[in-house]
């Protein structure tokens, strides 16, 4: 078991190093070169020379890479070109918003997807199953940003159930503790702020949940169908066990193993979706930051940090999923 963890950790490190090298190469080959990218219109020969020296671009490439890595490891990603603030600060402000949105979406996707997938499998071929399958197919075929606009139109313009955008009603102040607004409200006992944040969270979370929800329903359904054919389910029935026991201990405990893997893999899709969802709902998170870093002149230091952060999150989440696997599935534990 320990060997597996060590091997996976090594793989993680190798992946991240490879990625950082790619990012390094990418930054070196920006259109017009990194100097132009940094200076933009303010470029004069003097400034250029100064910056070349300051950034160490006159040194050998390997030395530069070593310095680049050293800065990464100390968490120094430089300053944002747009705002001039340190990149870590810029990202630190946006990151909790995206995590909050992503977690809410995942809760919806898993909380709705697993029961739906299970029921669809149990009622295979009936109308609930057909309806569910049709829904998942539609969910993966619809452009998510269009769905966002559609929901926004229905629930904020036609029936005023939810606010159209933002994370809080303007004018309402909250105390920032963790950056997760719903949680902050609870921690500081500002329950109205918490409720308001939750109210703002629902539509974007539903929009973002669409694709993971569709994927989880399909995987759960397929997995439950497989398990229902297993001999051990028949054994459980032959024991006369209660429905509840058979469903939980014998069907779901086995059927959810592949679902756990999928949840890990969905973190990537979730971030892709977050870029689009955040733009639709004007949600000030990483997704918005990415869009702003591209459209308002290319803010490369921020982009670079986001790329590394996104990969880190993905790799770590999947490592955790694999490790949790070892605890859920005894057959993995021994290996």
């Amino acid at each position: 078991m320990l060997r597996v963890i060590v091997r996976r950790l090594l793989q993680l490190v190798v992946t991240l190093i490879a990625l950082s090298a790619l990012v390094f190469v990418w930054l070196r080959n920006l259109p017009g070169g990194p100097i132009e990218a940094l200076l933009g219109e303010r470029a004069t020969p003097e400034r250029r020379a100064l910056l070349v020296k300051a950034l160490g671009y006159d040194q050998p490439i390997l030395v530069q890479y070593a310095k680049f890595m050293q800065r990464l490891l100390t968490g120094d990603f430089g300053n944002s070109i747009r705002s001039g603030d340190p990149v870590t600060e810029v990202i630190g402000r946006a990151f909790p918003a995206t995590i909050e949105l992503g977690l809410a979406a995942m809760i919806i996707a898993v909380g709705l997807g697993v029961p739906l997938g299970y029921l669809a499998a149990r009622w295979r071929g009936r109308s609930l199953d057909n309806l569910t399958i049709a829904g998942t197919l539609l969910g993966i075929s619809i452009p998510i940003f269009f769905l966002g606009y559609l929901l926004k139109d229905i629930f904020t313009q036609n029936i005023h159930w939810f606010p159209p955008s933002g994370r809080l009603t303007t004018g309402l102040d909250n105390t920032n503790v963790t950056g997760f607004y719903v949680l902050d409200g609870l921690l500081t006992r500002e329950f109205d702020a918490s409720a308001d944040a939750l109210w703002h969270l629902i539509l974007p979370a539903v929009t973002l949940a669409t694709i993971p929800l569709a994927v989880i329903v399909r995987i759960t359904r397929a997995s439950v169908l497989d398990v229902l054919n297993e001999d051990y389910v028949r054994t459980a029935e032959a024991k006369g066990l209660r429905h509840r026991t058979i469903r939980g201990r014998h069907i779901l405990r086995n059927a959810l193993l592949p679902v756990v893997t999928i949840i890990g893999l969905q973190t990537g899709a979730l971030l892709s979706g977050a870029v689009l969802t955040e733009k639709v709902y004007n949600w000030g998170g990483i997704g918005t930051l990415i869009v702003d870093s591209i459209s308002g002149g290319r803010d490369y230091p921020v982009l670079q940090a986001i790329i590394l952060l996104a990969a880190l999150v993905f790799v770590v989440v999947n490592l955790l999923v694999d490790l949790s696997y070892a605890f859920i599935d005894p057959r993995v534990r021994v290996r």
Partner: protein
Amino acid sequence: MTDPTTQAGAPAPAPRAGDERPGGVRERSIGRLGERKKARLEELAQASAEKGGVSLLRDALRRLRRNPVAIVGGTIVGLFILVAVFAPLIAPHDPVQRFAELTKTLTVDNIPGASAEHPLGSDPLGRDFLSRLIHGSRQTLFVGVLATLIGLALGVLLGVLAGAFGGWVDVVLMRLTDVMLALPSLLLAITLVAMVSKSSQWTVIFAVAIVNVPIFARLLRGSMLAQRESDHVLAARALGVKERNIVLRHMLPNSLTAVIVQATLTFAVAILDAAALSFLGLGDPDINRAEWGLMLGNDGVRYFEVRPELAYYPALAIVVVALGFTLLGEAMREAIDPKNRR
């Protein structure tokens, strides 16, 4: 009742050369055969592999034709391609022409709606929306097909290299796909577009294509690895077939069905990704270009509150076509799945 040639599992019914003895022994025993006998044996192995492949394919096609999901998906895809090919004949107007009767009353808050001459009204620049929608099928097909094919070609190349040679080639290539898969696909595409100073239709196509490279590469590698130890490849190797020919003539064809299925599914993803890039302002900047993702991601959402139809129609077109390709792809996957073979 059961056709004996369809009974063997995928990837292909294996012609048995020699028995189950370890490779070395078998090689020697075949080595003693006369050259003519050897050639004949190889011919037989080849023929039976081909025959197996054909009957498997025919079997899959038969199952496909009986599957209503495949029929629906195939019909949608077929109609889509027909419309794309004959767009100039179907569309009532030139998709880039601005009509005076439309621009006359056109403002940001008032985009002319349906009229007898323009059944779906105007777009924000006074062009015939229906004609743009119809022509949009062409550009959408173009972007989708190219992005899929480029992704497929690069992915297959990497996958074949990794799967066929193994060793360090495999390790390096798989690390590379790990890195690519570790990045959210849209972020990867955004990054790629951001690498060039100006986006164009080609940057979109490439960005969408690259995202799919690791998926094809993994698929191919898996299939190659599974076959490396299969009987028909061992047989070919024992007969002294060149390694390159084993890969190209024995292993690759057997992996292609899975690749075609994946490509069909990828097409749906590709047009959705292209639409997403347009929405983020990273799409094709050509204002004359009529492509559904572009129409939805730019004007569609920009004028959503003024005239939502500008979003509804391209969105509907994208959903239906993506659905069609997904249905067809899934039906194909089911058809070639040996589990469903009877």
